[in-house]
């Protein structure tokens, strides 16, 4: 405690000579925070710098200490951004993940669509509970469909027309590379049925503007888009809640359409399956090219050209 008393007088003297003291030494900016140490009295001790650490050094320190203390680090623990950026794969999807995302919570009991009843577990607190024992295999079926379509070089369109769903459909489309597309804002009426008008004849001739599969994260708000897909004979997948008829899409996934985590989970699972399909397709293209080259080489050897 004697050291504490010793520090106080020096602080007072620094404050009592304000202007001159502030600009006299290189460390004077900190004079109100740190009492000045007199070099002559403590010459046998090193004088440490007061300059704040550079940010790169601070990051290095924290990264060194991250592995100390316990086994838990930012990399191996759940973070709130994981459902969007690190979704579960269809091979490791579990019921608990679905429950954790709130996929089992349907709409009000009075609004239950009769054709949805096969997918309900029951009712609780005036709300329909969706039976996830049906949801899980149906979601895996939808993932298998997507993988098969991507494996045949098909294109998949993800539709999620609210602000909250936009990042999920965007990431899902990015995952599928050249075979993935998304509609994150309004679905323009006539995209499939009036494509010539919307895209122009030149684009119609040079590009294919019809996807091979459409995945709806909020089909209840996009019934016109679903009708267009039916007219254009394009298969559809959709998250169907308890107030919606599951027959509007070809492969319904009975789940909560109001939960963003559920939508991110569904979009993630389906897009990861789609990415696997795209990889298989690309590998098959490479192997076919290799086989063609080999065949051409063999032909050249077996039929030597006349010089």
């Amino acid at each position, binding site marked *: 405690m004697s050291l504490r008393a010793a520090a106080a007088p020096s602080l007072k003297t620094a404050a009592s000579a304000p202007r001159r003291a502030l600009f006299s030494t290189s460390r004077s900016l900190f004079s109100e*925070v740190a009492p000045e140490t007199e070099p002559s009295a403590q010459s046998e001790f*090193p004088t440490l710098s007061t300059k704040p*650490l550079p940010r790169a050094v601070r990051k290095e320190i924290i990264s060194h*200490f991250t592995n*100390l203390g316990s086994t838990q680090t930012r990399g191996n623990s*759940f973070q709130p951004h994981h459902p969007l950026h*690190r979704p579960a794969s269809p*091979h490791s999807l*579990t019921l608990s993940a679905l429950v954790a995302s709130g996929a089992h919570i349907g709409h009000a009991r009075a609004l239950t669509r009769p054709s949805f009843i096969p997918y309900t577990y029951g009712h609780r607190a005036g709300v329909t509970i969706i039976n996830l024992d049906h949801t899980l295999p149906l979601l895996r079926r939808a993932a298998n469909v997507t993988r098969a379509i991507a494996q045949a070089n098909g294109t998949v369109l993800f539709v999620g027309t609210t602000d909250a769903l936009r990042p999920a459909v965007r990431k899902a489309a990015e995952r599928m590379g050249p075979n993935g597309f998304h509609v994150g804002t309004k679905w323009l009426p006539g995209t499939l049925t009036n494509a010539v008008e919307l895209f122009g004849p030149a684009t119609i001739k040079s590009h294919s503007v019809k996807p091979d599969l459409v995945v709806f994260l909020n089909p209840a708000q996009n019934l016109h888009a679903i009708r267009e897909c039916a007219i254009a004979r394009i298969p559809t997948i959709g998250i169907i809640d308890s107030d919606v008829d599951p027959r509007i899409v070809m492969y319904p996934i009975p789940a909560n359409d109001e939960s963003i985590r559920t939508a991110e989970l569904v979009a993630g699972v389906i897009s990861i399956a789609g990415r696997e399909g795209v*990889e298989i397709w690309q590998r098959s293209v490479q192997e076919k090219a290799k086989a063609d080259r080999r065949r051409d080489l063999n032909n050249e050897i077996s039929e030597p050209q006349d010089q």
Partner: protein
Amino acid sequence: MSCLAPTRSVLFRSRLPTAVSRRCIHQLPTLPYKIENGLGDFLSPAALRTVAVEYQSGLLANLNELVKDTDLENKSIVQTVLSTARDPAKVLTFNHACQALNNSFFLDNLKPPSGRGSTIPPDLSNSIIKSFGSPTALKSSLSAAVTGMSGSGWVWLVCDQRTELGVVATYGPSTLLARTRMQVAASAGRAAYNPNRSVGSNTVQVGNVTPGALNYVGQSLVPLLCVSVHEHAWLLDYGVWGKEEYMRRFWDVVNWDKVDEILKKFVRPDFGG
């Protein structure tokens, strides 16, 4: 998570980090050496187990209880320390996380003595000579700081960005990575600072340590090495009053290579120290 044990094709090896499906809690970290063999003459296997297993797992168990179902439950220990350092409502969490981090740092920089004895790498040796005059002077200064502490705490070998070394002693659960409330109060010279009322972090200078260094904690100092000044560390092997012998034998097990590595990682004079 997996009683389902899916058969994943080798084609679908994911390149990106996979989803975390199981809740993680703080668990004992692994040490760079085996606990069963102890640390030479410094700590017997039983004493090392007390420090590295019993004390550490108790701290982590308490911490898990405290952070369960809060936004701190998925943070690493160092992030927990940094988030709770200035929050008066979270002082218990800070105390446990801080002690766990410091204990882990203390044990991480040690290694069982090899037959030849440890030599100090040249860069570190130059810094020691520049700041203290000789390694013996450093050892003497740090040991004196440990001997002078009448209470539990940690004694740190610190460095600034000009590779000047120093010794800092801190009582109780205290970190050099962030300025805690007590340090802010102390450095501002506020009369309200009353160590008798303090619970938890309490950094007070003791004799022989670099004066004024405490004011630069969390600002310009990086820790290189720390010594655990707790009775549970020396009680089993040396008895209640065995602190001096404990410090004498400490120097044989310091992993100077690791300290040198940390010095090179944490100190960048080219950034303008």
